[in-house]
């Protein structure tokens, strides 16, 4: 069995690296320090770590104050509280001023599992990508999360990092080629393109194999940066393969699939299906069982691919 790690671990490791190389990096937490993996930074650089208790709104605006003073704050909490509870603070204190605030929302998606609907953030991509100046990144494995976090520190402006708690294998191998905003082509293909983000890239990889067995050549794009979106790569996929399936562990209302469709309708409309949560709340259960139940699986992607292929001209 491959080495399994949640994306939050890659984030926590990168913070420690950043602490060493960038003295302006400060880490802010809202009482979930170990859960968001900010404790590793805290142990090494306690003077640059600030705990706000259960006060996400205060944490985000204070991060803005740090950024206005030349610091590079990473504000960490669960995704639902980061993106929802503090949305107005992110809008005004962070995005309107276009500040160098990095927000890490761990525990994104249905794979939060047993904690249930209140804690399963299914809306962050939508909530964050509507904000001008915001960059939205959804890593698919812990190594990609580590690289995204390191890159975030020197990428100007506000960034939202969507991270998860469920461990998955490392499926990317960037060497030094990771770029915010540049989709990663993980497999080539000519019949259809599967665009995945976050842990759904894991399922998309399996779907790619399954489709291959059925004689279908599927291209696989890892859209780790949902905003700014890699239009070029998406349009190329539409022109060259003529059909698209998107896959996200997130609501399809305004999420990554919607962002892809916005690019397609204006540039190269092709038949498309979105795999994701269909406008509903989650519920308690085992993480992987829930993903299957909600169709966030290789089978779900294959089913959508077969449907969309029938529509292809």
């Amino acid at each position, binding site marked *: 069995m491959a080495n399994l790690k949640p994306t939050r671990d890659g984030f926590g490791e990168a913070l420690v690296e950043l602490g060493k190389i960038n003295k302006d990096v*400060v880490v802010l937490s809202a009482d979930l320090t170990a859960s968001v993996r900010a404790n590793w930074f805290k142990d090494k650089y306690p*003077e*640059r770590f*600030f705990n*706000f*208790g259960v*006060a996400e*709104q*205060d*944490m*985000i*605006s*204070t*991060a*803005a*104050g*740090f*950024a*206005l*003073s*030349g*610091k590079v*704050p990473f504000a960490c909490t669960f995704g639902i509280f980061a993106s929802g509870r503090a949305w*107005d*603070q992110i*809008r*005004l*204190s962070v995005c*309107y*001023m276009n500040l160098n605030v990095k927000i890490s929302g761990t525990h994104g998606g249905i794979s939060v599992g047993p904690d249930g609907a209140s804690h399963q953030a299914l809306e962050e991509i939508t909530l964050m990508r509507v904000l001008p100046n915001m960059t939205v990144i959804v890593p698919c494995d812990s190594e990609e999360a580590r690289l995204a976090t390191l890159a975030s520190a020197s990428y100007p402006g506000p960034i939202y990092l969507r991270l998860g708690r469920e461990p998955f294998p490392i499926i990317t191998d960037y060497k030094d080629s990771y770029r915010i905003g540049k989709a990663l082509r993980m497999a080539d293909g000519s019949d259809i393109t599967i665009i995945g983000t976050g842990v759904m890239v894991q399922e998309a990889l399996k779907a790619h194999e399954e489709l291959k067995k059925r004689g279908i050549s599927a291209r696989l794009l890892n859209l780790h940066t949902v905003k700014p979106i890699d239009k070029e790569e998406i349009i190329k996929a539409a022109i060259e393969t003529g059909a698209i399936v998107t896959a996200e562990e997130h609501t399809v209302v305004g999420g990554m699939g919607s962002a892809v469709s916005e690019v397609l309708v204006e540039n190269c409309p092709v038949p498309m299906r979105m795999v994701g949560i269909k406008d509903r709340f989650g519920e308690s259960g085992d993480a992987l069982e829930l993903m299957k139940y909600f169709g966030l699986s290789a089978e779900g992607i294959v089913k959508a691919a077969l449907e969309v292929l029938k529509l292809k001209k």
Partner: protein
Amino acid sequence: MNKPNVDQLKDLAKEIRKDVLTMLSEAGSGHTSGSLSCVEIVVALYYYKLRHDPKNIKWPERDRFILSKGHTCPTLYAVLARRGFFPCEALMTLRKRGSILQGHASLVTPGCEASTGSLGQGLSIADGMALSARLDFKDYRVYCLLGDGELDEGQVWEAAMTAAHYKVDNLCAIIDYNKQQIDGWTSDIKNLEPIKDKWLSFGWHTIEIDGHDFKQIMDALDRAEMIKGKPTMIIAHTVKGKGVSFVEKNAPGYHGTALKKADLEKALKEIEGL
């Protein structure tokens, strides 16, 4: 700059009030009564207390001022203009398309330290700046002006706890306690009293003053600087609409309204006679 004396500050306050009313009237909209209640406080900060240099706006050692009650930006704009951050002619562009003077305080204005307008966020921003000074071993101070209606926002109290917990003594906040908000008297909408006890129990040093008395404001700002180990809150009792009798009498009515041209003439005359 030589520091002006109290009489000179009083004259400045008159000019600022006239600027505020004229620019709001020219804009045709904006927040009149709350801008008038904080004139002396903002004037005292920029002409007496703040360490700053209008010719070097981003000077790293400067003191910071955050206007958390961002809707009363006309007062800040008038003071910044007269202090030399930008030309006074710009004041007549308030709220117009392409202006450096937005309807609520914004970073696009030279000298404005933060965009505000959604209430409750400024004290947290000020906390972040004050903590940054500590990390950088700098001795600049951070000032933050809050509205009294703004204290209804829970985030203010989150920030109050944070500042006290981290013993942020380079932070001095001021409440423009004019006792009124959009819907009426604060005591009718959501009672703030005992306001001093609230801040004391949150771990702050408090000073209570008449927010229109320059001597008291200057003295309070000086005393705040001496307080170590905790942040200071200056509770400044003020009058909403201060300086114009018919605005004072109907302060909530002028919360978000500019004076009509005829009323403006009347108001300017009254201020001149003060």
